[in-house]
């Protein structure tokens, strides 16, 4: 089934001593999507990801991967995981380290070596293959770790804050690689607290705050659902018929009319397509008809309030 979700999280709750990190969270990640898990620091993103990886187990709820067969650990050869806390064996040579990381995912040694050499070349690290990981800059180490995540050609990539700590150039390189991998058929789940980043990259998102889901679904749908009520309309030869359309309270809640340009607030439940039809029907020459999209950030603030949007707790790293 091409549309079955790759990751299915159902009613998952995780409590740590003293507080609930994730509460009743459900989400579905469709195959081939670039899926953003968004929220301020301390919202429960990393805890959720660690549960998906079955590094920790949920107290309640169910997580199914690839249609429900096996846990994150059993399927680890199909998953590439870049944790939030990065780390490499400092004393190991880069190439040996990558081969090791691929081998524990079950890639045969010679294949692992070939893939690693390929990727090092692709990310401009070919000259560093024989160096110790410790001799590399932070940015380079992060790239090496990313290579370790994708060497076994995983069907599902789980990246926890993949762009954190990268300079703009490297962030760009990394973004391009993620998009390429998604185009090649991988499903990508990544977490970030930077909404603007997710907005450009994601097909679908799930926004969480204080361990609970605020909203999820395809990005376009979310924008349509939460917002999309703000219109900019420019009309030539606007006559009384056009005025009547603007004054129809079943269509337009509020109109700011400048003569041949107007900013409209759609009535709740009103369809912008019907408004356009009415305008055409009123023989207006429409030169501009734009549904002004709210930013993800604005939707988020609207939904949870500015207070919840601010980081409120250090994400718990202790798991028993």
């Amino acid at each position, binding site marked *: 089934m091409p549309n079955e979700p790759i990751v299915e999280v159902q009613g998952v709750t995780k409590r740590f001593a003293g507080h609930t990190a994730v509460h009743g969270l459900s989400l579905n990640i469709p195959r081939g999507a670039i899926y953003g898990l968004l929220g301020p620091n301390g919202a429960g993103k990393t805890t959720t990801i660690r549960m998906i990886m079955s590094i920790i187990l949920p107290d309640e709820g169910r997580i199914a991967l690839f249609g429900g067969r096996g846990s994150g650990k059993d399927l680890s050869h199909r998953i590439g995981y870049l944790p939030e*806390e990065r780390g*490499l*064996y400092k004393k190991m040579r880069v190439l040996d380290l990558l081969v090791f990381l691929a081998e524990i*995912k*079950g890639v045969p040694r010679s294949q692992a070596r070939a893939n690693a050499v390929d990727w090092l070349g692709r990310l401009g690290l070919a000259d560093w293959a024989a160096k110790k990981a410790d001799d590399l800059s932070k940015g380079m180490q992060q790239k090496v770790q990313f290579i*370790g995540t994708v060497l076994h050609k995983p069907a599902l990539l789980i990246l926890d804050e993949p762009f954190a700590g990268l300079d703009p150039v490297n962030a760009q390189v990394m973004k391009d690689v993620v998009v390429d991998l998604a185009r090649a058929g991988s499903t990508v789940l990544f977490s970030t607290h930077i909404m603007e980043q997710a907005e450009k990259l994601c097909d679908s998102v799930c926004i969480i705050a204080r361990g609970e889901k605020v909203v999820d679904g395809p990005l376009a749908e979310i924008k349509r659902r939460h917002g999309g009520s703000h219109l900019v309309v420019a009309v030539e030869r606007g006559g009384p018929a056009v005025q009547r359309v603007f004054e129809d309270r079943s269509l337009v809640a509020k109109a700011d009319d400048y003569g041949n340009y107007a900013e409209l607030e759609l009535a709740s439940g009103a369809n912008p397509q019907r408004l356009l039809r009415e305008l055409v029907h009123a023989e207006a020459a429409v030169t501009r008809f734009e549904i002004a999209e709210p930013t993800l950030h604005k939707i988020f603030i609207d939904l949870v309030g500015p207070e919840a949007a601010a980081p409120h707790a250090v994400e718990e*790293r202790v798991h028993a």
Partner: protein
Amino acid sequence: MHKIWVVIRREFVERVRTKWFIIGTVLGPVLMFGVIALPILMAEKGARVRNVVVLDATTAGFGERLSGMLGQSGSVAATRLSVGGADLERTADSLAGQVGRGLDGFLLVSDAVVDDGRAEYRGSNVTSPADMRILQVTLRGAVFSERLRREGVEPGIVSRAQIPVDLATVNIRHGKVTGESGQASFFLAYVMWFLLYMAILLYGVQVMGSVVEEKTSRVVEVLVSSLKPFHLLAGKVIGVGAVGLLQMGIWVGFGKLALDRRAELAGLLGHGSDATAALASMPFPEVPLATVVIFLSYFLLGFFLYAAMFAAVAAMVNSESEARQAQTPVVMLLVIPTVLMIGILNNPDGGMSLALSLIPFTSPIAMPVRWAAAGVPGVQVLGSIVILAVTVLAITWVAARVYRVGILMYGKKPGIRELARWVRG
């Protein structure tokens, strides 16, 4: 299983590649050689001729005869200084200033030495057992002859009565004569203790270091997403153990080679001196296969036991320095048989020796030492191995549970109650 193999190989290759492994492998035998051979060489080399003055206040020529006998011993140059009984103390006081300036010491003898066996030596070498033994033996012999002479015994009989006795010791195990001298058995037990203690401690600590490294560098998060914690732990312990076996194999191989050619080696050190002769004739025992098997079995079981405990300790802490502190109880367990080593050697069949060789935390060292010192009944060896193996399994089970939770924990070190929860979890 393949994944465990990958972990084993990484641990092994990365360790063998380090310069520390190479240095350790080369320096190990040098150090061993030093620890064992140096005292012997030092003792022999240090045995230069001592300059001793005999302050003679005797009246019947005893002082002269004693000086002569000391001179014959070869290691003492005795100068006799005849003094009147009244001047003895005063002369002694003035001689004291000479000690350390070409003079090693002086012996005070008067007629009292023959009458009631009292003499006195003052010198800078009184802490040397070898020197004091020569003085004592010579003095005793001289007094013995003197007393017999006084009783009118013929000098020929006196000298025949003084022929020394040499007691050769031969070890018997399991009712069989081994052709191994007591000294050789002692030496073997000593080497066994040294190797086992060092190896279990060094490689156990390496396992601990490896766990701490993965935890502090946060590599572990990626590892546990690919591996079961138990596989990671098992691979690590086996990998480090293999490095240990390799290193000891190299040492034992070189050691065997050096032993077989010790005469040539001794020759290289200096031609024909007493020291090299002593080294060449040192009583190295033949090591039977059974002893090698016992040694390796206890090394492996002991290493697994302690490596598991070291790994659990490492999983609980956040840094190298915390680990060094937390390891103390584990190291203490390992030190117990070392502290009681002399007790085991003095009485290899005693109750304490038996207990230490059965208790699993001390048996990896105590049993091989006992085995080397004297025969141990097969039942006891079997019992000890079974107890140890069961303990290894139990400790590994507990350690793996602590490890599984601990490697992903950062922050406060867990208390006993918290640990119990991890193990139950």
